[in-house]
């Protein structure tokens, strides 16, 4: 298939970027979106041009490194997939494909399509962990956890921190990310001792870093490649309220 690729080009964080359009020919419908970008980059290198910078790592849909806002949607037109798992058969022959970086004040563009997602790390540092004292490994069955709770915690833990929720939210809110990280511990006994501190600190950090507030549009859940439910946001709101009352 032949495509027109309209892509955001920006030299560095300080430069003023703009769109460039490239023609790309004979792309297999079975190739992944990132493979298509690889082909485009080879073409650009052969023409003596600067290749398009984009983030990627595992290309298996589990690392959370790839991003890209494709044709107006985070991770493109397919549901429940990351960009690396998106295939060219989802596009039409002759189509113009618009590719933009994640747009959020908290995720500044570093180059072309690469954004700085360190803000997520900073939120994690503020409380997205369980403190474990050193010592012998505890017995596997010492703490019993109901299956339903373990399942819900695992569903929240499926978050790969890609930032699609922030990218798609009309407010650039990181609520689904924070909710997933709070929720994965809130249902487990190991997370209980630090629950109040975690909810309070992570929400405070999110606000401090310039993410917007949640207005419950649900766009984050719809675009999340891991299908994380916004019910976790309701749980975060509960945990936060509890923490604030305790304060």
């Amino acid at each position, binding site marked *: 298939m032949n495509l027109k690729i309209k892509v955001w080009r920006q030299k560095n964080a300080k430069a003023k970027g703009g769109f460039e359009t490239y023609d790309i020919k004979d792309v297999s419908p079975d190739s992944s979106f990132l493979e298509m970008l690889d082909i485009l980059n080879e073409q650009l290198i052969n023409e003596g041009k600067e290749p398009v910078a984009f983030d990627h790592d595992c290309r298996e849909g589990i690392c959370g490194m790839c991003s890209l806002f494709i*044709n*107006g949607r985070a991770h493109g037109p397919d549901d429940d997939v990351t960009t690396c798992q998106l295939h060219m058969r989802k596009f039409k022959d002759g189509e113009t494909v618009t590719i933009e970086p994640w747009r*959020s004040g908290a995720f500044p563009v570093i180059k072309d399509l690469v954004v700085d997602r360190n803000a997520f790390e900073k939120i994690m540092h503020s409380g997205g962990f369980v403190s474990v004292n050193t010592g012998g490994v505890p017995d596997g069955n010492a703490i019993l956890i109901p299956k339903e709770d373990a399942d819900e915690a695992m569903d929240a833990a499926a978050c790969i921190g890609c930032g699609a929720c922030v990218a798609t939210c009309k407010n*650039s809110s990181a609520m689904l990310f924070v909710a997933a990280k709070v929720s994965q511990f809130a249902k487990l006994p190991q997370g209980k001792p630090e629950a109040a501190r975690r909810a309070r600190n992570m929400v405070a950090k999110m606000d401090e870093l310039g993410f917007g*507030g949640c207005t419950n*549009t649900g766009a984050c859940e*719809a675009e999340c490649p891991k299908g994380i439910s916004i019910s976790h946001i*309701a749980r975060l709101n509960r945990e936060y309220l509890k923490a604030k009352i305790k304060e």
Partner: protein
Amino acid sequence: MSLSGLFLMVFLVVHLTVNCFLFAGADAFNTAANFMVTNPIIKVVEPILALGFIIHIAWSIVITIQNMRARPVGYNKLNQGKNSTFASRNMFVLGGLVLSFLAIHIANFYVKIKFTHEVGEAIVDGVAMHDTYTLVTNLFTVWWYVIIYVIGAIFLGFHLSHGFWSAFQTIGFSNDIWRKRLNNIGRAYAVIVAGGFALIPVYFHFVQ
């Protein structure tokens, strides 16, 4: 937003209930309206209601500005039709439209009754009271007021269709099961409230 919103939603139910007395005739509605005006509880609630509106509006402006600042550079192509509802994305605009309707609505009734006294007197069972029934029915003889009130109700309906569930989600009262329930209750609530408020002008214009 959520707490003030929930409070205002309770007010809407009370408002619509009193309005329903319009269908029972002049004496019934005037008595109901008079009960609301003379009731000591309402006297206390009235300033709280005004405060509820002010908090809801002022806070919405603050968070809308904050949320707009969170994305200094927007997208060239944005396609959100599939991932969220129209109402959820446009709550501030819909709220602004409801507010403009509210200004007209207050000028039509509240101002005329409380300040300019452009309202007649009715006597029901020997008690003198404002003839608000005639004030309402006279207004809806004007066709373009009917249109304004119906459109106002539609905006309110869209605002509530997202607002109801959203308020519960924000206070943490939701999970995968309750979300569906609250969404359905919210839609039903929006249809009943908006439908009820829209029916009154239409009924009095065409039927009466």
